[in-house]
């Protein structure tokens, strides 16, 4: 082997010295040298061995890596991104019910969170390692030494970096020889050309150019029209054999693709067959007065498949119920006089919401019967229109028009008003009843209805308002003459605006 050993390299004048390297023949002498170098105060030194050597980190004074912290930070970032992303996407931005789970449902988020944590931790570790090692690095000055190839075979190297504050070429060389290093030599810059080969550049440019083509093709498709049918990458996903809503089918005799419920189907949570709750009638009492009708109503509730006769009967019942409340003799139904719901702010809020959605269009937000539909009907002088009731009419108060009857009216409808049983759930209908009662009370309340503690507040408010009204009245009286001129100006302006339009 000795005959083929290259001689130590020498430094030319124009070359930069990166450091000094020395060879060692065995691990122990290398480790001893490392310790001495560390103790001498060198911090930028490196050792090269053909195999991993335990304890070389401490011998060289290399501190434990910060890579675990990078991995932890990246992993936690992944956790955060995943949770925030899913919360935003599924919980806020595009709420979509999946498997009946809540929109923000932590257990369902965990798999993605786990995956993203692992992914980012891996990326953090991988690229963090690159960053810490200064990769990618295509060449290292160490490779300029021909002897250095044996670092992967049977020789150990110790390198002192010129960047070290203590570095001094002669001193470093002396130290390494003193420590038993052989072939102590300076490490110089690589002299080979740094110009990237032309072939490589052309290849790179070609790849970059080609990579634009798919994007350009997509862009072109986005802005042009084509006579030929679209290309379907996944035809079975684009043309699902399953039927959409409202489509027809040949599979069933009635041709409907959307299948009606199987007779007897009960929705989950709808098994509470409380007949009183669903009709607003005290059935036990009705059974004593009018047994056949009670039996019929109970049967109606039990039997989901309503046949024609039953519907007629129901219509009869509805018409009977729709008789004016004043006509006491026509309606002997034992209506529930009390709302079966436990009244609370929540129930009233729910009732208000449902009332505003379904009832206020005709009855008006305040229940005075002048909703938008009514106003429109009057404007176009609709001949078949029956104006909606005023909720504040004394005939609709709880004492003459019981809660159960009001509930039944909402359920089955009256005059022009359709039944709302299919739109509003029974519970919500009762909530609407409760809200209507609250509305009625609000329009007819006296000071006695207000709790003791709050009366003084109300009185104060009342006094304030009256004072303000009085002041406003006086003000208008004082400025009546001035304002008459001003208002005539305004009027003329307004009319001129209209003319312009």
């Amino acid at each position: 082997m000795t005959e083929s050993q290259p001689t130590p390299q020498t430094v030319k004048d124009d070359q930069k010295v990166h450091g000094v390297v020395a060879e060692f023949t065995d691990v122990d002498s290398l480790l001893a040298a490392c310790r001495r170098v560390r103790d001498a105060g060198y911090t930028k030194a490196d050792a090269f061995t053909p195999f991993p050597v335990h304890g070389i980190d401490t011998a060289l004074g290399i501190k434990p890596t910060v890579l675990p912290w990078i991995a932890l930070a990246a992993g936690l970032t992944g956790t955060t991104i995943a949770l925030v992303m899913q919360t935003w996407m599924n919980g806020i931005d595009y709420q979509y019910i999946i498997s009946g789970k809540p929109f923000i449902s932590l257990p369902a988020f965990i798999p993605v969170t786990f995956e993203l944590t692992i992914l980012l931790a891996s990326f953090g570790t991988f690229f963090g390692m690159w960053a810490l090692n200064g990769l990618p690095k295509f060449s290292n000055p160490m490779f300029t030494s021909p002897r250095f190839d044996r670092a992967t075979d049977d020789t150990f190297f110790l390198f002192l970096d010129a960047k070290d504050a203590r570095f001094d070429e002669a001193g470093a060389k002396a130290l390494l020889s003193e420590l038993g290093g052989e072939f102590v030599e300076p490490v110089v810059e690589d002299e080979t050309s740094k110009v990237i080969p032309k072939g490589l550049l052309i290849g790179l440019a070609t790849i970059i150019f080609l990579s634009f083509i798919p994007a350009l093709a997509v862009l072109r498709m986005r802005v042009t029209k084509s006579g030929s049918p679209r290309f379907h990458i996944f035809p079975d996903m684009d043309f699902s054999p399953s039927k959409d809503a409202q489509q027809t089918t040949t599979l069933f005799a009635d041709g409907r693709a959307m299948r009606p419920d199987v007779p007897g189907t009960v929705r989950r949570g709808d098994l509470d067959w409380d007949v009183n709750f669903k009709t607003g009638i005290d059935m036990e009492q009705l059974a004593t007065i009018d047994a056949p009708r009670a039996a019929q109503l109970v049967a109606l509730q039990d039997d989901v498949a309503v046949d024609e006769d039953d519907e007629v009967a129901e219509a009869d019942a509805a018409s009977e119920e729709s008789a004016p409340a004043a006509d006491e003799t026509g309606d002997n139904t034992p209506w529930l006089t009390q709302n079966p719901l436990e009244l609370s702010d929540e129930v009233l809020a729910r009732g208000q919401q449902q009332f505003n959605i379904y009832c206020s269009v005709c009855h008006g937000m305040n229940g005075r019967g002048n909703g938008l539909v009514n106003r429109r009907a009057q404007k176009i002088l609709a001949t078949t229109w029956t104006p909606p009731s005023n909720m504040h009419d004394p005939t609709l108060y709880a004492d003459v028009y019981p809660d159960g009857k009001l509930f039944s009216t909402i359920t089955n409808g009256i005059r022009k008003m359709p039944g709302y049983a299919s739109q509003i759930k029974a519970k919500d209908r009762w909530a609407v009843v409760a809200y209507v009662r609250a509305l009625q009370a609000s329009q007819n309340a006296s000071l006695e209805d207000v709790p003791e503690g709050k009366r003084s507040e109300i009185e104060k408010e009342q006094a304030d308002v009256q004072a303000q009204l009085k002041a406003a009245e006086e003000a208008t009286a004082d400025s009546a003459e001035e304002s008459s001129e001003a208002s005539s100006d305004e009027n003329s302006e307004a009319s001129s605006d209209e003319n312009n339009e």
Partner: protein
Amino acid sequence: MSHKAVAIKPADDPAFQLPASLAGLSLPMIIVGIVALVGGAFFASSSVGGRFGMSSYLVAYMYCLTLAIGSLFFVLIQYLSRAGWSVVVRRIAELMMIMVIPLALLFIPIAVAAYSGSLYTWSVEGYQADHGIPLAIWEQKEKWLNPNWFLVRSLVYLGVWCGIAAWYYRGSQQQDETGEITITEKLQARSGPAVIAFALCTSFAAFDWVMSLAPMWFSTMFGVYIFTGSILSAHCAICLFSFLLQRAGALRDEVTVEHYHDLGKYIFGFICFWGYISFSQYMLIWYANIPEETHWFFTRSSDGWFNVSVFLMIFHWGLPLFGTMSRHVRRRPWLISSWAAYILVLHLVDLYWIIIPEAGVGLGGATGIISTLICVLGMVALMLGLMLKLAAGSRVLAVRDPRLGESLAFENF
């Protein structure tokens, strides 16, 4: 991969003997253990209820059994992977795994309970009718869950475990005397089939002994869940026992920071594994939301059990995950041993959470928890006493294992 030459002490070095201070504890511990075990179970039965008393006994039994079979798996996997690092702590695991033999005797009360119907509801007369389970389904269930067939299977599991444990224990002990390398080779060669037999027995035993407490519930993940707890707690126990042995004066030079570091890595890994497995089991059942599957978790997410579930999530997974994540913790023997002791306690909470809800008396109240604790401590003391007795008669390190040198010189990167 080490250049470090390590001198192996002679086989009769006092460092390999159980310290006298520990050997003397053997008999008192056995006596106290038996008294506490019987007393705790009796106290639980009389104060809370018969089924609860048997459930407490099952908690204690499963606690020691999971440690024993976890150690058995540890030993098997070291032979299977021809691991060198673990030789210095393998004898501790061997002493724990051989405890399946006394545990096989301690199975008798459970077998009796299976016949008398005082533990498993499926062996109670009229269970099907009382719970409105369709007869056709129950007839199929009964083909598997009936006392006789249950006993046969249990004997098979215990037989397989005891057989494997005894064979590996004897082989390792023989090598202490002869130093034959062929013994290691033989043990290695059989470790593959042994692991397969172990896996099947463990999984089915978990189904039979624990999962069948709720006879109409099933989870294919459950066997792995029990196994996870056992392998995690086994690593913790090995770590803790090594530390205690060293504190008592044995193995001072043999078990080094490097071994604690490796055990710590496994503890950390199996904490993740426990979280992964228990969450997977929960997730699939929660998502599918099929009534016959969800009731097990429903029980554990209502009443006081919900708090225990959250407690486990935070303190069995979250806290130790971050606690054992750092290299600095794992390279400090007293710190990682403290975490090991902590997880051993949490493993008990885990088993309590698995077993006790099926007794149908809620959390069991203060008396229930204390009596279960007495029962568990009794069983643990009994096992420790037997282990110390056994260890006093042999050595606490496999002194002539061919890989001992490698293990002594073991270093992490």
